């Protein structure tokens, strides 16, 4: 029946003012579709970012060396993984402040188990399990108990930081099996394994977010939770899931980080590490207002952040000044987000 209507056969009774624009829709649609892609301000900002990196690579000494690039990517992978987790959360207009401290706590617990059992697999799995459990706690608090994400995750951040220092006596957990850092901090054909894991997870998460029902429903919740509910989306489950994912990402980041350091300690994930994470997401187009953000954007944003940090290191910029610059970058990109919205409105 509906097909019949589409043919225009049964439209006789309708208002006669069929407008001419829709009639020529197929032609216009290709043009408007390309406009939709190219006119997308996010892409313009990404191109601008890439240009900056290219310029940096020419003018900064020692930047374009293999050692520097690989260390840069493996550095970016820990914050990048957590930034991916945060992207899911930020799309729903939530926030997960607990990420770095969860990474530290889960690595500490997992490494203790690994030290005692000398079993790498048990250690790695327990790192991820602890992080996932904390993520699930965040998720339940926000989705079921309707607590405010910022407060819950701030509290969890504090508890996790406190626990990490308490159970380790503020020292680090060492004595891990050699194969642990060999596997997760090693390299294949000169390419760091941590970077490979990061890229693999990023690709999976990108597909999950952009190509699956879960991903679409997640954006629906972010843009308008009420409409999503009317559409039949189980919003509670979605919100629970994203905090769980965020926790798991912190766990994976913890594995890579502990392998790189060959130990785990409370200093791995101090609350200020959150700055780098949120920088990556915001530069990549995520908006704290919700509904926006992509994995590709976040990955590029995290790499951009890593480049800036790296360049500052190469130039020997004072550690404390890097904070000022990072803070400035967040403000700048939040303002860009507003410009982006304005540009979007004009289209």
């Amino acid at each position, binding site marked *: *029946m*509906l097909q019949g*209507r*589409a043919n*225009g056969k*049964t*439209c006789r*009774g*309708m*208002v*006669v*003012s*069929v*407008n001419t*624009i*829709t009639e020529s*829709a*197929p032609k*216009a*649609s290709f043009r*408007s*579709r390309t*406009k*939709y892609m190219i006119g997308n301000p996010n892409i313009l900002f990404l191109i601008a970012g890439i240009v900056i990196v290219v310029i940096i690579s020419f003018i900064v000494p020692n930047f374009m060396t293999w050692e520097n690039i690989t260390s840069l990517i493996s550095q970016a992978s820990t914050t990048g993984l957590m930034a991916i987790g945060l992207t899911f959360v930020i799309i729903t207009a939530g926030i997960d402040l607990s990420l770095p401290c969860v990474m530290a706590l889960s690595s500490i617990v997992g490494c203790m188990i690994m030290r005692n059992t000398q079993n790498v697999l048990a250690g790695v799995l327990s790192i991820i399990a602890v992080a996932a459990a904390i993520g699930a706690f965040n998720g339940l608090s926000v989705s079921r108990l309707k607590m405010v994400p910022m407060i819950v995750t701030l509290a969890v951040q504090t508890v996790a930081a406190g626990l990490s220092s308490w159970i380790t006596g503020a020292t680090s957990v060492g004595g891990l099996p050699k194969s642990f850092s060999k596997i997760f901090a090693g390299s294949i054909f000169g390419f760091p394994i941590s970077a490979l894991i990061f890229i693999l997870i990023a690709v999976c998460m990108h*597909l999950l977010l952009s*190509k*699956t*029902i879960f991903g*679409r*429903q997640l954006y*629906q919740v972010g*843009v*308008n939770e*009420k*409409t999503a*509910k*009317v*559409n*039949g989306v189980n919003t509670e489950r979605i919100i629970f899931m994203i905090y769980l994912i965020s926790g798991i990402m912190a766990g994976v980041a913890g594995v890579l980080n502990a392998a790189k350091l060959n130990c785990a300690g409370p200093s791995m994930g101090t609350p200020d590490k959150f700055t780098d994470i949120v920088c990556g997401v915001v530069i990549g187009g995520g908006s704290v207002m919700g*509904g926006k953000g992509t994995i590709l954007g976040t990955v590029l944003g995290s790499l951009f952040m890593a480049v800036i940090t790296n360049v500052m290191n190469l130039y020997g910029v004072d550690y404390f000044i890097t904070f000022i610059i990072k803070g400035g970058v967040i403000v700048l990109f939040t303002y860009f987000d507003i410009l982006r919205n304005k540009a*979007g409105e004009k*289209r």
Partner: protein
Amino acid sequence: MSQIKRRTLKIENISKSFPGVKALQNVSIEAYGGDVTGLIGVNGAGKSTLMNILGGIHQATEGRIFIDGEEVHINSPRDAEKYGIGFIHQDPVTFNYMTVAENICISKLHGVVNYKKINVEAQKYLSMMGCYIKPTKKVGDLPIGERQMVEIARALSCGGKILLFDEPTASFTENEKKKLFEVIRQLKRQGAIIFFISHFLDEVEEISDKIVVMRDGKVVISGNTNEISRAEILENMIGGQVAELDDRSNKTFDKVVFRVEGLTAGKSPNNVSFELHKGEIVGLWGLMGSGRSELIRTIYGLDKADSGQIYIADEKGSLQLAKFSDVRNYCGYLTESRHDDGLFLPWSIWENIASPSLQRYKTKGPFLNYAQQREDAEKYVKALHVKTPSIYTKIESLSGGNQQKAIMAKWLLRKPKVFLLDEPTRGVDVGAKAEIHKMIQKLAEEGTACLVVSSEIEEISVLSDRILVINRGNIVAEIEKDRIDKEVLMANCV
């Protein structure tokens, strides 16, 4: 009132262009004191622009305005006030934390306020309208109808020679509307020039002495209300014929597809039972606050039910008990306020249309088929005459009527067994309204059972095959097609 003393307002060849649009072209209108001029037109016809020019919010590009034979230049709302022009907006613009008197005398509040004096003054204007609201009450505590009265009183306090009502009844109950009309008649007797804009033709016909129909920024027809037929008005508004609704009076419905039994959720709904038949349009009629939206939300599973059962017909046509969380899979739900919970405003049309039907686009793998989504959206946009440059257009840039059609498209795509429609034509112009009514009929023809909530008596009596009357969360009456008329409906709901 003698002819000589009558106030006059003459608008001569007014034109107004905005960048890229000619909002008004050579509009000339004459209006006299003691007359109500009804101004009608679809959205974007130029009614509001004209009123905004009179109210000093916009300035005309060309043309002249005369009041009592003298040319006036209205460059700001303050000027408008000076000439005694009062503007009453669609949604009352009031300061909710201030008192009624403060609101009414807002333009006279300077320095130290003499509350005794302004209370007396406010009382004066309120009683002019035959309205008894305490001047010391906070406006935020008043119901919306009384807030409107406060706004009218404010307009009166500024002279009130010329009053512009811009869709004042949009969010009114029947009673509040009656009250407003009484006030307008009162003001009419006092010799004010009144303009009345409304989407509702029957309202305009009821209250106005003269009718001016606008389309595309021009006056297309004007004359005395009793000399212009409704068909003429409609034709001129839309510039074409309006969709005629089918006569469904001889239809019978026997196959029950949906049954609600003893549905209770808190106070409302309270032990509600009814049945819907295949292809039937059932109206759910009740005043605001009667629990109609709550009933629909509970059926749809958005509000939690305390007790009761819902049965839905399966493929073979026999009724099966459904879990509350499953009901929504068989239903479409057009919500009462589309901006609130009907749309994803920043998204394109196709994304909105496909959004509740993602399950349909699952490919063999875990991924979604986007090309198919766009294709279907394109198809439905065409079939339902959604006026848009393309399916990639952001839905927030469409007019209300077209947004509503897009929402219809999104639910039609899901091919629901039962379609719940809460105020399907609220804030929609006459042309789109007729199209939406037609769509509902068409959908019923195809076998969907439709449950339509509407505050408009007209709409619900024209559309429904049967009407359920709801009051305080209870179904209090059921009215068959041949007994549907206004008196019966009004009598049953209070």
